[in-house]
Structure formats: structure tokens, C-alpha cells
């Protein structure tokens, strides 16, 4: 289990400009859905983008988090 604030903190450390939405899918702090919008993703494949997110979360994926549904995007012009 991992606290949502902890997850957001790790993500913002890796993607300081990111807009992040995070929802706990099951209420058990281990199945999350996250949307991350950041310029850091520009020019990277989806696989590479998700790998960047996994790296930002470090050891969270090898235990505390069972599932993380990801949507990564670059910001669209207003």
C-alpha cells in the first residue's frame, strides 16, 4: 500500500511541471489510475513515457502498488 500523497510527491519530483490526477480504484491504496501531463514526455514513445513514470516511482511497483493504470500526455496548446 502506498499513500496517494507519497505517489504524487515522487511523480512531481521527477516531473516538476506535471499536471497529475490520481485515483484509488479500489479504496485499498494499491490499485491506482494516474493521468500525467508533462513536457518531459515529448518525443518519447508510450513505452518510454511509462518507463519514465515507473522509474520515478522506484520501489513502489515491486510491492506496495499492485496495479497502476497510466495515461501519459504532453500538454496541448490552449
Amino acid at each position: 500500500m502506498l499513500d496517494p500523497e507519497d505517489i504524487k510527491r515522487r511523480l512531481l519530483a521527477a516531473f516538476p511541471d506535471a499536471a497529475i490526477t490520481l485515483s484509488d480504484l479500489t479504496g485499498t491504496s494499491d490499485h491506482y489510475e494516474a493521468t500525467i501531463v508533462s513536457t518531459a514526455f515529448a518525443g518519447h514513445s508510450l513505452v518510454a513515457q511509462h518507463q519514465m513514470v515507473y522509474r520515478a516511482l522506484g520501489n513502489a511497483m515491486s510491492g506496495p502498488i499492485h496495479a497502476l493504470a497510466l495515461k501519459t500526455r504532453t500538454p496541448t496548446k490552449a
Partner: protein
Amino acid sequence: MDPELKQKIQGMIDSERVVLFMKGNKMFPQCGFSARVVQILKETGTTFKDVNVLTDPTVREGIKQYSDWPTIPQLYVAGQFIGGCDIITDLFEKGELQTLLAS
């Protein structure tokens, strides 16, 4: 990564054009994310091989090391890692998965 394990996994990835490492098998998926990818592949009419990682803990961990990707399911097409459930769903909705599978 253990060279024997890497070779074993490489062999599985190369054994068919489309290979899905999943929890359960294509008839009886044992996880919602794996089930969704199976469903998408069926909708595209693609023939694919399923590898049930629940039957082999070394493959279950090995495939994550191999692709530097921490979760299952994992889809490989022509030896290349395409993504997990989120990416496959995204590509399918954009029509890009169908193009990739057909090429």
C-alpha cells in the same frame, strides 16, 4: 539477468509473431488487465500465443527484467515489446494497433 533465463524468454518471444505474457491463459484470464488485452486481440482477429506467467515464477520475474517493465500483461509483436494494457488500449482506440498487427 541470468543468461539461461534470458535465452528462455527470448525463445518464447521469438516463437510466434504475436506473444502475450499474461496472468492466466487466453481462455481463462486471471486478471482484469490481461483479460482486456486478450479481448482487444480477439477483436482485431489476430492469432497470438499466450504465456501464463502464473505457472512459472522465474518467467514472471524474468519478463519484467527483460523489458524493464514492472507489470503483466506484456505484448510482443515480431520480437518487440509493444506495451501493457494501457498502451494496447490506447493504440487500439487510435487504430494504431491494428496497423501494427497487419504490417
